[in-house]
């Protein structure tokens, strides 16, 4: 016996098997993303003032990605229509268009948006004195003014009344100074330059570090460790504790905002050229003012690039966009399979079955598109 209804509709349900299957699968996917969206709501509602740093997103890049994903949803329908009209060439044309759109989406996400964030750092300070020293003495009052506008934009994007803003309660030392690390000074006072702005080497100096006296004194050891009381010590001696690995005494830092014009400086785009910054840094460093600053290790309470460990916002951002991007990748692989010669043979053998496959792929693709349409506002706009 053959399995019935694999290519034609069952009269009483009006579905062929694949369509029933994909709708059930999508129901499950709705629950998966629904749970993550719920987690987003719960974490955001519970977030302390000055920790939900969503104002950093480049909305135009996000909007561009939204547009091409919507466009790809249209082209995949065209591919299906062509098959319905027995137009194989038209099908291939529209299918390729869909793949190219999807691929562009991933390129923007994975080679532009994510890596740029991995080289962008936040510094918070141990005491109010160390913070104000950096903000007013080194960077000057003009910078501080610009910086406070940026905090407002970043942590309170809905721009509530300045005085009622929850940001007013956050101490200066806990407000992050953002920018790029261009170098560090080791224990012998020797200055070192670090990696490119973006590209492969970003992991080499991406790290999250927190001021911790014990942490500073501990020797490098990557295995499980035990405290003096004999109990295991959790999460100490972390692999990304570059301070200890390289024996860093101070970092050389380029604040991303306030020192350059807005077009050039927005480091979230990864557009800063380090050679330039370094060149400027030379005299700035010796003069004591200018584009780069040196922040001593003792003054830093937490240093983190915009990686998942940075904050619950970025954790949510990477998890949601990452899971969505995996769905896009899966869709691309399936669509490429439909463009292989083997699919032509399936089509010739049973055109109805093949057309159904394209319809099902389309349903999945619309779902992926729909998820992004929810992700874009909650991560970039609201």
């Amino acid at each position, binding site marked *: 016996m053959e399995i019935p209804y694999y290519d034609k509709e069952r009269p009483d349900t009006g579905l062929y*098997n694949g369509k*029933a299957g994909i709708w059930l699968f999508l129901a499950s996917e709705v629950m998966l993303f629904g*749970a993550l969206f719920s987690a987003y709501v719960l974490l955001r509602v519970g977030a302390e003032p000055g920790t939900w740093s969503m104002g950093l997103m480049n909305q135009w890049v996000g909007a561009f990605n939204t547009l091409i994903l919507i466009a790809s949803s249209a082209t995949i329908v065209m591919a299906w229509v062509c098959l319905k009209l027995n137009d194989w060439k038209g099908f291939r044309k529209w299918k390729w268009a869909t793949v190219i759109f999807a691929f562009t989406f991933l390129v923007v996400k994975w080679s532009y948006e994510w890596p740029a964030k991995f080289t962008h750092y936040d510094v918070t300070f141990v005491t109010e004195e160390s913070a104000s020293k950096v903000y007013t003495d080194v960077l000057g009052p003009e910078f501080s003014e610009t910086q406070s506008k940026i905090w407002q934009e970043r942590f309170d994007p809905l721009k509530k009344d300045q005085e009622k803003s929850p940001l007013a309660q956050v101490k200066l030392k806990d407000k992050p100074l953002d920018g790029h690390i261009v170098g560090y000074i080791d224990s012998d006072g020797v200055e070192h330059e670090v990696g490119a702005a973006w590209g492969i080497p970003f992991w080499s100096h991406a790290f999250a570090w927190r001021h911790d006296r014990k942490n500073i004194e501990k020797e490098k050891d990557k295995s499980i460790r035990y405290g003096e009381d004999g109990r295991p010590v959790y*999460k100490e001696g*972390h692999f990304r504790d570059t301070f200890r690995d390289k024996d860093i005494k101070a970092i050389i830092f380029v604040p991303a905002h306030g020192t350059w014009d807005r077009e050039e400086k927005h480091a979230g785009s990864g557009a800063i050229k380090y050679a330039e910054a370094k060149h400027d840094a030379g005299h700035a460093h010796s003069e004591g003012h200018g584009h780069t600053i040196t922040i001593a290790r003792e003054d830093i309470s937490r240093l983190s690039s915009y990686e998942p460990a940075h904050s*619950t916002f970025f*954790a949510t951002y990477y998890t949601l966009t990452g*899971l969505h991007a995996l769905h896009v990748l899966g869709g691309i692989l399936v669509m490429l399979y439909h463009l292989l010669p083997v699919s032509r043979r399936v089509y010739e053998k049973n055109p109805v079955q093949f057309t159904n496959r394209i319809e099902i792929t389309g349903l999945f693709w619309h779902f992926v598109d729909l998820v992004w349409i929810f992700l874009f506002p909650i991560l970039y706009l609201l």
Partner: protein
Amino acid sequence: METTTQPEAEHGEHNDDHSHGHAEQSFFTKYIFSTDHKVIGIQYGVGALVFLLMGFILIMGMRWQMAKPDTPVPVLGPILEKVYAHEIALDGQGKTVPIFKDGKITASGYNQFGAMHGTIMVFLAIVPLGFAAFGNYVVPLQIGAPDMCFPRVNMASFWAFFAGCTVMTVSFFIPGGAAQAGWTSYSPLASVIPTDGQTYWLVGMVLLITSSLLGAVNFIATIIQLRAPGMTWFRMPFFVWAQFVTAFLLLLAFPPLEAAGIMQLMDRVCDTSFFLPSGVFASGTEPMNVSGGGSPLLWQHLFWFLGHPEVYVLILPAIGIVTEIISNNTRRPIWGYRLMVGSLLVLGFLSFIVWAHHMYLTGMSSKVATFFQTTTMIISIPSVILLTCLFMSLWRGSIRFNTPSMFALAFLPMFGIGGLTGLPLGFNFTDLHLHDSYYVIAHFHYVVAPGSIFALFAGIYYWFPKMTGRRMSEYWGKVHFWGSLIFMNIIFMPMFIQGFAGMSRRMSDGGATYSMINNPDVTSGALTDQVMSLNSLITMGAFGMGLVQIVFIVNFFWSIRNGEKTNSDNPWKATTLEWQTPTPPPHGNFLEQPKTYHGPYEYSNPDVDNGKGFLAQNDPHKSVSEEQKEAEA
């Protein structure tokens, strides 16, 4: 129909003759990478039975530790000490030691066994056995389908399960050993625990969830799309209904756990703080090096959003099996079939809105607690209806007391005890006292051990003749049944008493720390000698239970080749379609497209005069009342 019955011998060898429309298969495609739902069902079944045994061995080790804290485990201890020779458990003094140090189970080893016992029993044993194994084998047969809707997806589901099982098993042998944070993996503990077992656990869970997703889609699509002509919704056997609802629970409840698992994996691998609040201390005097801002409660919500429907995933296939067997062995229609189906659907829906009754002690507001208490009490109504219908079905039946029917009958009171003792846990004011005590253990084990597992044993004894053409030994089956029934109650009944006395469920010394023996100055609140002495009784029960299962294992394998031949495709004289095929069914199942004319339980219908006492679903013979109805129309 008796027409498919062949005289004796070698149905097996002629299988290929029956498989119209299916190509010849090599050994690999037939038995290993098979797309045949029956082979996949058996693969699932064997895998699940292996893990059922493994989960049981883990708990026997724990029971020994509870009865005789810090004494070497007899026989097994020295052997396992050699197996676990490398240092993988923490001894509490900052050193890694073997799980079995000097043949004794370390506290960390006990935690691993506890976490993995729960995980293995729930996700690797009972769900695969009840849902995947029986579902795969029986559902397409019962609805008259040639296979599942998506055979290759079905195979993918099994291999994802296999991969998940492999990861879980391997995690015992990595440095630090398996997960130790309990089967619920509560954060922050599970997020910060320094060994890698928890990470393996999460990866394993993602694979198992993928497997269950693929399986659930397949089951629902199959039941919607592939019902044979005439197999209307209310002609489906109740077992199919139970699988249908179970599949929906898996489809919709598991993804939130997957989301939670992904987030915990991010916490562990990428150092995020989804479940870690600001300023959390794990050890020492400094807060952890994390951003904070997360919510430990988020994990509990997401976990129990799966966790509660999961309870019904464990029990609904069991109720389905019991319904089939009771109807068949009382030779009567099920009482209130439509009522049961309705209850099942209500139960499935309500199971999504009761989850927070696992979390009364998290400090939720009384309004929230009231909501969840109410829904919890409401959900007991359909459960009671199901059980009552099954009891009513026994009324005036002429019951055949064979092994499957005895297991199915024992299921009813055992599940009843489990269900009724759940009510005090559903009210937050009684739960305050009973939470996290042995009372909870006793309650849910009455539901899943003498409940689900008895039903699964019943199913194995019942469908074994369809799979092999031979029966399992009735004598040894009854030994297995009576032994299991007695020992189950010896194990779990005393736990109610221990729970009332306040014994916590998470102590590796069985509560000795809080006993009167070790605290002679404490006059009240310490565990009395009587309560403590129950530990030995329970452990003896557990080891007795183990002995009885050996009978089952031997019986099972012996009967595959040497069991009594059934000489019939329908040895139980059943009405449902799986018995109207050759034995064992060939690839493609039916020799011709079956048509369904009747409901699933047409036993002892006085209107019928076909001379058999039952009316198979595909028997075109009409009952007198059906003829009258047609004449009127």
